[in-house]
C-alpha cells in the first residue's frame, strides 16, 4: 500500500508538471510594452516553484516508499543534519530565493504603477456599471466635460451623465460602447464605477485593475499589436457579471482617426 501510494504521488507530481512544461495552457500573447516584464517574472517563478514542487513531492514519495512498514528489529534513524540543517535549507533555498524573486518582481509592478503616464498619452475615460463598460474620448478640445450622476439615463443613452446643453467641454465628448486605441501610443485610462465594484481585465494587455465606487483610479499602458481583444469584468458585480464585457480594438493611427470621426458623427 505504501509503495503504491509513493508511486501514485510521484505520477501525480510528474503528470501535474507536464502541461506546464509543454505550455499546454498559457496566457494569450502579450501586446503591451510592460507585459514582457510580467511574463518573464511568471516564467522565473514557474521554474523555482516547479523545482520546489517536484523535489518536495518526489522526496516525500521516496521516503514513504523507503521507510514504511519496516521490520521490527530495525532502528529509528535521524535525518543527517537534523532540524537545524532543514531550517537553514528553508531559510536559504526557499526563503532567500523567494524574497529575491519578489524583490526583482517589483520592477514589473513599478513599470505600471510607479511611473506616471507621459504627457502625450491619450486619455480615455472608462465607466463600469451593471453590466456594461462605456468609454469616453475628450473630443477635439482635449477636455472631458464634468459628470452629473443624477443625469445618468440609460433610455436616453446618457450613460455618463453629461450635460451637453450647459457644459461646453461635454459637447464634443465622444461616448462609445467599444474601446478603440491607436497602436504604439500610450493610453491613460481614467476609471470610475457608477454603481458597484467591477474590474477591467485585458489578458493580452497584462492589465487588470478594479473599479472602486467612490474612487477615481487610472492605469496607463501602450498596446503594440493591432487586433481585437476582449475586456472582461473580473470583480463580482451581480447577476450579469459573467456577461459583462466589451472589446478593445487596437488600430493603426489612421484607422483610429477615422473611427473617432465616425463615432463623433454618431453622437
Amino acid at each position, binding site marked *: 500500500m505504501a509503495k503504491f501510494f509513493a508511486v501514485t504521488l510521484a505520477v501525480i507530481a510528474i503528470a501535474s508538471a507536464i502541461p506546464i512544461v509543454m505550455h499546454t495552457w498559457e496566457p494569450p500573447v502579450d501586446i503591451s510594452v510592460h507585459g514582457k516584464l510580467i511574463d518573464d517574472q511568471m516564467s522565473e517563478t514557474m521554474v523555482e516553484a516547479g523545482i520546489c514542487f517536484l523535489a518536495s513531492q518526489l522526496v516525500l514519495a521516496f521516503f*514513504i516508499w523507503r521507510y514504511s512498514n519496516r521490520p521490527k528489529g530495525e532502528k529509528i534513524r535521524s*535525518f543527517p543534519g537534523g532540524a537545524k540543517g532543514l531550517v537553514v535549507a528553508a531559510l536559504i533555498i526557499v*526563503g532567500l530565493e523567494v524574497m529575491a524573486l519578489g524583490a526583482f518582481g517589483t520592477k514589473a509592478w513599478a513599470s505600471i504603477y510607479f511611473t506616471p503616464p507621459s504627457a502625450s498619452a491619450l486619455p480615455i475615460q472608462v465607466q463600469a456599471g451593471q453590466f456594461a463598460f462605456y468609454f469616453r474620448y475628450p473630443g477635439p478640445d482635449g477636455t472631458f466635460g464634468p459628470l452629473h450622476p443624477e443625469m445618468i439615463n440609460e433610455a436616453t443613452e446618457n450613460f455618463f451623465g453629461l450635460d451637453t446643453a450647459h457644459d461646453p467641454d461635454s459637447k464634443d465628448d465622444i461616448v462609445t460602447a467599444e474601446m478603440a486605441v491607436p497602436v504604439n501610443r500610450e493610453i491613460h485610462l481614467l476609471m470610475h464605477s457608477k454603481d458597484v465594484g467591477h*474590474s477591467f481585465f485585458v489578458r493580452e494587455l497584462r492589465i487588470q485593475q478594479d473599479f472602486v465606487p467612490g474612487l477615481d*483610479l487610472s492605469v496607463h499602458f501602450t498596446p503594440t499589436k493591432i487586433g481585437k481583444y476582449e475586456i472582461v469584468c473580473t470583480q*463580482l458585480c451581480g447577476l450579469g457579471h459573467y456577461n459583462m464585457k466589451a472589446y478593445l480594438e487596437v488600430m493603426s493611427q489612421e484607422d483610429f482617426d477615422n473611427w473617432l470621426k465616425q463615432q463623433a458623427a454618431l453622437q
Partner: protein
Amino acid sequence: MHDMSAHAVHHHAPPTGFIRKYIFSLDHKVIGEQYYLLALVAVYIGLVLSWIMRIHLAWPNAAIHGLQFLSKTGAPGGVMTPEYYLQLMTMHGTIMVFFVLTTAPFAGFGNYFLPIQVGAEDMPFPHINMMSFWVTFVAFIVAVAAFFVPQGPPLSGWTAYAPLSALGEVAGPGQGTGQVLWAVSIAIFCVGQLLGSLNFISTTLDMRCQGMSLMRLPLSVWAWFITSCIGLTAFAVLMPACILLILDHVAGTSFFIPSNLVVNDQIQPHSGGSTLLWQHLFWFFGHPEVYIAIVPAMGVVSHVLITNMRRPLLSHRVIIYSMLSIAFLSYMVYGHHMFVSGMNPFSSIAFSFPTLAITIPATIIVLIWIGSLYGSKLRINSASLFALGFISMFISGGISGFFLAQPSIDIMLHATYFVVGHFHLVMAVAALFGIFAGTYFWFPKVTGRMMNETLGKIHFWVTFVGAYCIFMPFHYLGMAGNVRRYQAFVDDFMAPLMPVHKFITIAALITGAAQLVFLYNLIHSRFWGKPAPQNPWEGTSLEWSIPSPPPFDNFGGKLPVVYHDPYQYGVEGETSDFVMQDSPEQTNSARDER
C-alpha cells in the same frame, strides 16, 4: 499551571437527563461532538452545492432534477438562472469556510481533545463553552434560512464585497433580506468563535495537569492554542464589520457606500462611505482565517504522523515556533488579496514581502515533516494516509502562493481559477485531509469502536487522486486566463477551455461520491464497528491513557501527572517502542533534537 491532582473534582456533576447530557451539555466532549456533527451536516450541504455548480458550469443548460424544489424562481424546471448560480456559490463558500473549515478542525477536535491532552477534566468555563456551540448553531440556521426567504441567498460571494453587499435589493436578487441574514449569521458566528477561543486559551494556560509544561504539550494542543489566539483578534474585527454592513441595510448608514452611486438610473440615498474599508476589515479577518483552518490541521497531522512514524519530529520546538511565526505574520499579509483593488500601489509591495516571508515558516514545517519520515518506521493506515496526503496537498497549494504573493504576477492571475485552485488545495482540501486524518485516528477514542480500514482506504484513494484531478486543472485554467465567479463561459475565448471544465466536473462528482463512503463508514462503525482498545495506535499522549470512550470527567476523578515530552517513541523497550506521557518510567530515548 495548577496541581489539582490531589483534589480533582469535576466542577459540574454528570448530567442525568437526555437534554442536559446530549443537547445543552456542559461536557467539552459532547460539545466537541456537536461541533463535529454540525460541520458534518454543513460539509454535505456544501458538497451538494459544489456538485450543482460544477454540473451547471460543464452543461449550462442541463436541468438538475429536484433543484426547482429548492427555488422555483432560481431554478425553473431545474435549470439554474445566472443569479442562482452566484447565490449557491456564495452559500458554498460561506458554509464551507465558516461552518466546516473553522468548525471541525478547530472547534470540533479542539473541544474534545484539548482538555484531555492537557490533563484537565473540562474547560474552565463550561457554560460559555456550551453557549459557544449553540451560538454557532444559531448562526448556521440563520445562514441556511437565506435559502428560504423571497429572492433567496445573497449573490455577492463569501467575501461580500461592498457596495454590492450593502446597497440592498436594488443591487441584485438576494442582496436585501438574504444579504442581511448572511451578515447576521456571520456576526453571530464570530461571537461563538470568540467565546470558544477564550475557553481554549484559558484551558491551555491554566488547566494543565502537574508536569505538563508548555513544551510538553502535544503539537495538536499548540495548534489549537495558536489558532485561538488568531481567532480572538480576527473574529473581533469581522464582527463589527458585519454589524456595520447590517446598519447600512437597516439603519440607512453609509459605512461602505460612497456618494453618488447610480443604480437603475437612480442616485442611491447614501454618501460618504468607503468601499475599500470593507475589503480591509474583511481581509484583516479573511487571511488569518486561512490559518484558522490550516493550523489546527497542521497540529492534528503532526500528531497523527508522529504516532504512525514511531518517532518524534526532528524538532518539537521548531514546529511550535514556526506555527507562532505563521500566526504573527498572518496579520501582515492580508493586503495580497487587494493588489489590484485600487489601494495605494506602494502598499502592494509592503504586503507582498510578508506574504513571501510566510513561506519560510511554512517550508520549515514541511521540511521537518518530510525530514522526520527519514529513518522512521511508518505505519500505513487510513489516518496516516490522510496525514501524508495533507502534506502533499499543502505543498501543492502552498507553492502556487509563490505566484499570488507577487503583485506583478497577480495582475494576470487575480480573480482567475488559479486563485480558486490555490485556496482550495491549501486551505480547503488540506484542512479536510486534516479532518479526515483526525477522524480516522480519534474515532476509536470518541466512540469506543474502530472504523473500517478497507472503506477508509477506498475513501482515501478516491479523494486523494480526485482532489488533484479537480484542483490542479484549476491552476491551468487560471493561467490560460479563465476568470472565476462566472456562471457560464459565453465568449469565444473560454470555449476551448470547456473540455477541462467537463473533466473537473466528472472528477468532482466521483470524488464527492467517495465522501458518501466516508459517511457510511462513520455511521456504520459508530454502531457496529469492532470494539476499540484503549490505545489502538500505541500513542503516548494523555487521551490514550484513558478508556475509550472517555468517562465523563476524563480521568476518573484523579488528574494525571506528566513525566515526559509528548512523543516518546522509538524507545527500546522489551514489549513496546513507546512510553506514555503519564508513565513514571524513565526513558533513555533520544530527546527532542534542539
